[in-house]
């Protein structure tokens, strides 16, 4: 049974628009920093542009939407893991040099993880999982749903 919440078409649109959120956050977070460093700027710029492009193309081209969303999710996940890895190694480096640095370090670490994890790891993982689920479902399901009439008000459909 396909509900409004599991309707592939709606979800595809949701993820296409949803990609703009991490794109915006990454762009703001990166360019708000007062220091420019190409090692940081270039990958973030590529992922941000990729996310925006995938959103636009997914909305415009239904046939290629899955592929584009998958590519964008993988890129975002890759960047998220890269950033978390870099951050964890930085903390390990500073911890090795200075010893445990107490509550301040823990707060800082927690804050960065909280900021990164939902947008750059959990979100693309959910997106990839959904895309996989979609592939496993009969191909006809999506096309039938996409051409189906508007959903009834009780939120269910045959």
């Amino acid at each position, binding site marked *: 049974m396909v509900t409004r919440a599991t309707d592939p078409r709606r979800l595809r649109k949701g993820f296409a628009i949803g990609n703009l959120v991490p794109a915006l956050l990454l762009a703001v977070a990166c360019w708000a920093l007062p220091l420019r460093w190409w090692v940081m700027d270039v990958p973030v710029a590529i992922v941000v542009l990729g996310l925006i492009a995938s959103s636009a193309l997914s909305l415009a081209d239904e046939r290629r939407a899955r592929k584009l969303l998958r590519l964008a999710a993988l890129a975002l996940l890759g960047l998220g893991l890269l950033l978390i890895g870099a951050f964890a190694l930085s903390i390990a480096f500073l911890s090795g040099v200075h010893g445990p*640095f107490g509550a301040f370090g823990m707060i800082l670490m927690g804050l960065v993880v909280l900021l990164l994890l939902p947008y750059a790891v959990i979100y693309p993982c959910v997106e990839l*999982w959904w895309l996989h689920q979609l592939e496993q479902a009969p191909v006809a399901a999506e096309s039938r749903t996409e051409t189906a009439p508007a959903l009834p008000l009780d939120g269910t459909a045959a």
Partner: protein
Amino acid sequence: VTPRALARLLAAYLAVLCVACLGLAFTLHVSRSTAPKRSVVSVWHGGHRIARAVVSEHAEQTLAQHDSAPGTLRVIEDVLDEAPLLTLSPALFGLSFVPARDGIEVTYGGHGSLATPDDLVKIGAYNSSVSFGDFKLKFGVDAKVAFAYFARELDVPVDELLAHGKFRRLSLRRRSPAGEVTAPEVNVASLDAAVRGAGGYLARSVDAEGKFRYEVDGASGEETPDYNLPRHAGATWYLAQAARHSGDAQMRAAVQRAARHVISNYYKDCGSRRCVTGDESADLGSSALALLAFVELVESDIAPELLGRVTELSEFLRSQQREDGEFKHLYDRNKREAIDVQFLYYSGEAAFALSRAYRVTHDRRNLDAARRALSRLVEQPFWYIGWRYYWGAEHWTCHALDDLWDDAPVPAALDFCLDWQEFVRNTAVEGREASPEYDGASTSGPFVPPQLVVTATRMEAAVATLSAARRAKISASRLEALERGIQRSFAFLLRYQYLPGPTHLMPDPDMMHGGVPASETDFHVRIDYPQHAAAGWVEYIRLLQPQTSK
């Protein structure tokens, strides 16, 4: 990508990352509590190292022949542990040392050289900073300065040294002269010595014309060419307090010269009123702090003739106040009009100065202006979501709170200062592994030595808050927490005041005596550093002596 494959990938990534992090931290870690492996013996004279030996035993006897020479100090530092460095890239190299605790050892072509924290202070390797716009961060060791030092020591070009030299980090602990293991006691005697020391430092730095030696690097003896009029006035204010507290003739004479310097050079017309300025654009802070100093000089009877100036400057400050209590911080002398802009500190300084002026002028307009300004200062901006978690530098605000409490109390200001002090206590340094001596300091970040002036300003505010809170009869537990925080932070400040401090690194220790440096590794003493620290100390002495407290 199947969910199972993704989960496996993430698990593998997490495992590799954990192993890499643990391995990195373990490789770079040095112990600070093991038995010494060897000792570095250095002999210092007149701020210069004149001899050095690295020995594995009998350190006490090594280079002992220098002990009899006057003005010479033999320093023994134990090497407790060592670790490799991750990289020689300047930024990461700079971050690879705990300032004031770690040394560097370099071997090249069978020869070795070593830099202790004392050496790094002397070569200015701790003075580097990275600026992000207006924000300045000090990081560990300046790699370029350190590389140049080792290249000189080993007589090899820097590039060659970096290509073939082997660098290591050393964990050092000073054995002799032994540092204080426990925190200094905070009592009337220790505070009195500190207050007199800071006053003496400032008095000695006032020249015949009344100008302060503005900023001096204790490690090199060099002066900074800058000057700042509000800071001149602030230092004059504290010097007047110190002269009053100690009755010292040299301080009295110096503060009179410093006040005269303001009047002779900077006391000018601002429209129909008089103000303190060195420019066509008069700032509020210079007049406010000069007013504060003049009130102190009148009250203490050091310069009662300044009462007229107090009245004039009070009028100028009041004329700059808006209806809502805020001040216009500039006055354009050419256009004869106030400019409605605001800068850090000035409103608090004006509120405090007007409150103090009321004491000697008994003009209720000053009291009313101060009360309105204070009420405005502690308003919580509803549009700023971080207001519960962020405070600016509010020491002048809390001074004003204290001073107004008897005649025009502002309860909201007391809540504000108490909350701020709770924040200060909660964020103070506690149990930093490499530097337990920093306990109680207001932190400038977990990886740098705390800047003393940051703690100093917060503590002068803490003492003012304690003074008002006692009279407001707040709960005993809150008073106790506030006072415990003050004692802990003052112990940190007292530890690093130059009484006499590491004199072996100073070319002129007598000149620096009583000064309060920027930090343990930055020997610069600017005139406002002792001012802020000692303004809190002198007030706390009054609170510790009930018969003289307010």
